[in-house]
């Protein structure tokens, strides 16, 4: 991806910060850019595209005006091309955690410690932030971040430990292969003897099992045993064996992602059934300077369509301009005929 991706942890100042780099957040960069507004985007995913790239990269979309057929990934690539002239800064693999007032505008802090100050905040959080699924095993929460992890941030944590990885997708298999050399013992547990993951990783895993370097068990995880956040074993179950114990110090469940509203719920903005109510003139929330566009917003007649989100972004940008450049006159122009817009797009 040829985007401008920032290192985590920095401090930034910009005109508009956009939470969510789904299709609607991306196109908002274009509409804001035409009005000379600078943008930063934050997304918990490691790449732009939101639902389009996470849920249906290969599937065709047929209702984008002017594009007879385009895949989720294709649309994202085209949007990235289209907004390139505006040099937006991306903060990826980061969760926008908190929002607070800062002077005339706002400060957003991410879970990686990045701080972005902006006059205007645009919430384009779609169906919510994509976060790892947590298996509904009783008591699992009391082991989180001590014995149960949904992502590997530091491999060292797993050195010389008895590690159990649960799942059958690419993350489960990739981490099995990565952690096997450093773990004291590694066991992969999956509900079937078959995998969604890339065949190459599966073959490598099976070879390690054949060499006696790790174990693979077909079973379901029924319970966790331990004390004070420290796991000692799992209760597994199969039809043949019934319940049985498997020693474990660490458990890594990898069951893909799910959309959760997440920290936006604590931003202090008005919510209605996990959606953000906005007006239909500016798509602004009841908090001046904070807008919501795309799947996350609600208003009478709302349709969760990409088409509608694009329109919302265009109208939002008009009001964002008034906040960011109060002394300048807003001029309505067409990209077709305005040489100043064409200069911004790098085509004049």
């Amino acid at each position, binding site marked *: 991806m040829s985007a401008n991706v920032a290192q985590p942890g920095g401090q930034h100042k910009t005109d508009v910060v956009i939470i969510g780099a789904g299709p609607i957040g991306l196109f908002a960069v274009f509409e804001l850019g035409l009005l000379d507004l600078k943008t930063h985007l934050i997304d918990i995913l490691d790449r732009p595209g939101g639902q389009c790239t996470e849920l*249906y990269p290969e599937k065709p979309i047929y209702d984008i005006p002017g594009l007879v057929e385009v895949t989720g990934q294709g649309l994202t690539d085209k949007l990235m091309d289209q907004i390139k002239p505006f040099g937006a800064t991306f903060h990826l693999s980061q969760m926008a955690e908190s929002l607070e007032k800062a002077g005339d505008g706002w400060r957003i802090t991410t879970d990686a410690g990045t701080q972005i100050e902006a006059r205007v905040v645009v919430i384009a959080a779609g169906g919510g932030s994509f976060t790892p*699924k947590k*298996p509904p095993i009783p008591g699992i929460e009391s082991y989180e971040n001590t014995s149960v992890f949904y992502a590997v941030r530091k491999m060292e944590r797993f050195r010389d430990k008895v590690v159990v990885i649960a799942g*059958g997708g690419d993350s489960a298999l990739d981490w099995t292969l990565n952690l096997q050399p450093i773990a004291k013992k590694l066991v992969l547990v999956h509900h079937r003897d078959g995998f969604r993951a890339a065949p190459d990783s599966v073959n490598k895993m099976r070879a390690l099992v054949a060499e006696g370097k790790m174990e693979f068990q077909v079973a379901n995880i029924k319970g966790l045993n331990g004390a004070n956040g420290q796991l000692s074993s799992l209760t597994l179950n199969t039809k043949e064996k019934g319940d049985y114990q498997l020693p474990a110090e660490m458990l890594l469940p990898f069951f893909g992602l799910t959309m959760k509203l997440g920290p936006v719920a604590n931003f202090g903005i008005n919510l209605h059934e996990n959606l953000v109510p906005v007006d239909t003139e500016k798509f602004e929330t009841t908090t001046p300077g904070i807008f919501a566009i795309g799947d996350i917003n609600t208003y009478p007649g709302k349709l969760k369509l990409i088409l509608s989100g694009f329109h919302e972004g265009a109208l939002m940008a008009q009001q964002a301009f008034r906040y960011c450049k109060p002394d300048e006159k807003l001029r309505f122009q067409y990209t077709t005929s305005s040489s100043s817009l064409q200069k911004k797009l790098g085509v004049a």
Partner: protein
Amino acid sequence: MKLIVTDRTGKVHELQARDDWSAMEVIRDANLPLSAECGGACACATCHVYVDEAWVDRIPAAQQQEVDMLDFGVAVQENSRLSCQIKMNAELDGLQVTLAPESL
């Protein structure tokens, strides 16, 4: 045509199914709590249900794509299916399913 759904509290709902709708669509249309995030694209596994034992062998077997996607289901059992991949028709009249637990 009926689809009988047990929700996560154990309450049983007798839903009017429509020919050619997926079980997921019937369940969602009744406003039962099924997130079905990908809207039936077999890409999320959040439409996960358990099929009543009596029906397991009577519904068409899962295609490979559904079997693979179930790897991303939580609390998967032998009678697990993705309800968006079960098309309702007269032969499935009276099908009984239970909503599987969701991700925490």
